[in-house]
Every structure is written in structure tokens, then in C-alpha cells.
């Protein structure tokens, strides 16, 4: 799967990495059991500090998107294992400011739902769950 890291963006690079890898899993481009490059290799290919990649991998691991296997390195986790109890609470926290923005910009509820549905469908096409 291709990762496109923007050095000019306001979003820190470790966040870009994290977001794109999660999106890759959602689109089905990164499949369960698939290997990610080693921290060193990915840092060299992008041309960034090892700690940046390490930070992204650690966050992904904490959220159970990937597993750190001692022999195989970073591996994509299974979708079943990714689900956890407090994910809805955290989603609420993270999505609330975005909905507030949409509200202030005058977006109607059904317009917002339409947008969300479209993005959701773009992911669910690649993955059966």
C-alpha cells in the first residue's frame, strides 16, 4: 500500500502515518497478517527520524491495529481483535469537535450524515465484515 507523507502539512508526520495505515486497513489494502516495513526501513525510505515512525507504530499497537511480533516485526491485526469496548466513547470525543465545526459552518444534520455515509461506504467496499 502507498503512503503519501506531506512534509508541508500541519498534521505531524506520525499522525499522517497512523491515519493512512488505519485507512489502508479500512479499505482492505492492508490485510490481516500483512507485514509493515521495519521502523528503520520506513524511516529511511521517508527520510525522517526513527522515533517518528516508532511513535506511529506504538500508537497503532496501543489501539490494536497492529501487533508487534518479535520475529516478524509489525503485523496487521485481525479486525475482530481491533474492536474494543471504549472505542465508541473515544470516537465521540474525537468526532465532536468536527461536528461542532460543521454545525457552525451551517451544515444540516442530513447533509452531514450523507457525507459520513459516503466516506463509510468508500471503506466498506474493500472489506467484508
Amino acid at each position, binding site marked *: 500500500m502507498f503512503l503519501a*507523507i506531506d512534509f508541508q502539512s500541519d498534521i505531524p508526520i506520525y499522525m499522517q502515518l497512523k491515519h493512512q495505515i488505519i485507512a*489502508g486497513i479500512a479499505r482492505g489494502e492492508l490485510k490481516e497478517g500483512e507485514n509493515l516495513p521495519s521502523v528503520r526501513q520506513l524511516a529511511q525510505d521517508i527520510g525522517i527520524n526513527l522515533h517518528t515512525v516508532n511513535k506511529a507504530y506504538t500508537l497503532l499497537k496501543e489501539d490494536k491495529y497492529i501487533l508487534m511480533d518479535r520475529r516478524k516485526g509489525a503485523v496487521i491485526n485481525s479486525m475482530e481483535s481491533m474492536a474494543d469496548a471504549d472505542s465508541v466513547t473515544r470516537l465521540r470525543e474525537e468526532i465532536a469537535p468536527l461536528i461542532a465545526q460543521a454545525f457552525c459552518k451551517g451544515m444540516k444534520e442530513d447533509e452531514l450524515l450523507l457525507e459520513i455515509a459516503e466516506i463509510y461506504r468508500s471503506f466498506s467496499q474493500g472489506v467484508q465484515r
Partner: protein
Amino acid sequence: MSYEMLSLAIIVLFILILFVIKLITPQIVRRELFFGVRIRASQLNDERLLDFKNTYIKNYLSICGFYTLSFCIVLIKIPSNSVLLTGIVVFFLLSTLLYYLTHRRVMEFKKANEAQMLNRKQIVMVDTSFRNDKSKRVLPSTLWFIIPIIIICLNLVAGHLVYDELPIILPTHWNIQGEVDGGVFKTWGLVFFLPVVQIFITGFMFLLYRVVGWSKLHISPVNPAESRERNRVFRFRWGANIIFLNILILLAISLLNLFVLQIVPINIGVLLFTQPLLIIFILLDILFMAIWTGQGGSRLFIQPGSSDIDNDSILDDDKYWKGGLIYYNPRDPALFVEKRFGIAWGLNYGNAKAYILIILAVGSLFLLDSLTELMLFY
């Protein structure tokens, strides 16, 4: 034809090949890296760029061509090592200067057309499966190195088997007529000397092979899938070529070894030319690889995938390329990078490891040298 004339002919051929390699370099590099300057896809077809290239080739052919010819003539008149060495150094300086003048003109061209490029994205693209895609390998299998190992083992076994039958003094030096005029006492060191050289060379080639796999990825956001495939084939072919050259060099040394061990009688004249001919062959091989594949696979025919010119927002890393030739980026952990204007890979001189590597390489040469002394004379 005498030995001197033939060796002079080989040296002249060597110089001519160097001349051709430098001549074709602008044709084999990545299109978007024009004379060491990163140019946007939308500007690549600008006629001024074509002008720069044509002027460069004209200048190179007239100035470097004239120099190379006179160098060859002087060398034939005064064949000495110092003339050869000085001549080659001057050739490199001259051709680099011609390159640099064009590089500066391209830099100015870019600066003049940069206004609309402010605030654009600076994207680096990578592929997470580039190195672990089993069906489309980046390098030929490591198992191929079994062949060099078998060759080395055969040489070692041969030395062991014939040791007792060899005379006490072995011939090691011959005059121009092919008569023995020097020899050394038979020792185990002498018998195993050439296999040890083979081991050193194979170790070095194996490292090069690994470097081809490790080196920094370089994918264009305009057409990532196509760019990735070019990258892959480029590496695969060079990896295969390294293994091929390794086997070839080992076979040439084996020929010498069989002669030293007096297993096969070989005409001494044939042996004397093995090494220079091998060097010529390796140069021709590199030339062929460069034309066949191009830097980053730029000369490959790959089924074009979807491409998006508007997405041309690759990171502008010109400032880390000194003169477009030397990569110096202390913030990049990568050690090996594809050369912008040249063939194959180079080092990131902003990385302390690059200097450790250079010291290690020089150190291992010294090690081989002192090992030679130890094995041959004690």
C-alpha cells in the same frame, strides 16, 4: 603484436569507454531529475531544457572529445602510469565542470519558474509492501550466492589436494618472453592465497547486493504504481548483475589459481590479459546495464498506469544535493541513495555511518594487503 602494444590498446579502450559513459549519462538518468535538479512533470517538456541538454552534449563532444583524443595520443607517445593517472583525474575534473555549468543553468531556470510553486505540498511516497512482496521480488534470491561459495570451496579443495605434489619453489613471476624469473617457497599460505582473495571479493559483492535492497525508495506521486515497478526492476537487474559479475570474477581468479597450482597448463600470455580484459568487460557491463535499465528504471518499458500530472507535489530535496551530485542530509537516516546524475547508488554524506563505511572499506583493503604479505612471504 607485442605485450606493450596490446596493453596500451586495452588502456585506450578503457579511456574511451569512460568517455562514452559520461557522454550518455544525461540520457540514462530519471527524467524528472534533469542535470541533478528536480523538475516538475509539467515543465519537463520545456524547450529550454532540451536546449540546455543539447548545448551540454555539444560542449562535451567538442571539449571532452578533443581532450580524450589528445590524452590518448600523449599516452601512446609517453606510456607511463603517472601520465595515465593525471590524465584520468583531469578528465573527471573537466567532465564534472561541464556538467556543473549546465546544472547551474538548470537551477536558474527552475528558480525563474518557481513562483507558482509556493505553498504546494511536499510529498514523499513509500510503499509498505515494496520489500516483502513475494511474487514481485526486489532482489534475486540470496541462494544464488551458493554458486560463488561452491567455486571458492572447489579452489580450496584443489589447493589441499595438490599441495604434496607441488615443487618446493613455485614460479610467481615471469618476464616478457614468458620465462620464469622469480619464485617463492611453497607454503599453505601461498596455496590458499587466491581463495582468500575470492572470499574477500564475494563478501564485498554480497554487501553491494544487500545495499541494492536497502537503498532509499524513490516513488513519484504522479504515477506511483508505474514508478514502483520501475524501481523494482531496476534493483532486481542490478542485484542479478552483481551476482553475475561476482561469479565471473571468481572464475577468472580460479583460472589463475589452477595455473599457480599447476593443475592445468595455461599460456602465460592468456593469463596476463585476463585481468585487463575483465576490467574492460565490467565497464562494458555497467554501460550496458545503464542503457538497458536507466537510473531508477527510467529506460524500461512499463505499461503506464494511471498518472496524474496535477498531483506533482514530490518533496523538493534539491537543497540536500550539493551540486546535484553529493547527497548531504543529516536528518535522513538513509545511508544509500540512488545517484541523481550518474549510475547506480551513492552515500548520504550527512550520515556519520557513511564515513565509518569508507574507513571500513579502506581498512579491509589494508587488511587484505597485510594478509597477502603474511600468506606469501612467511
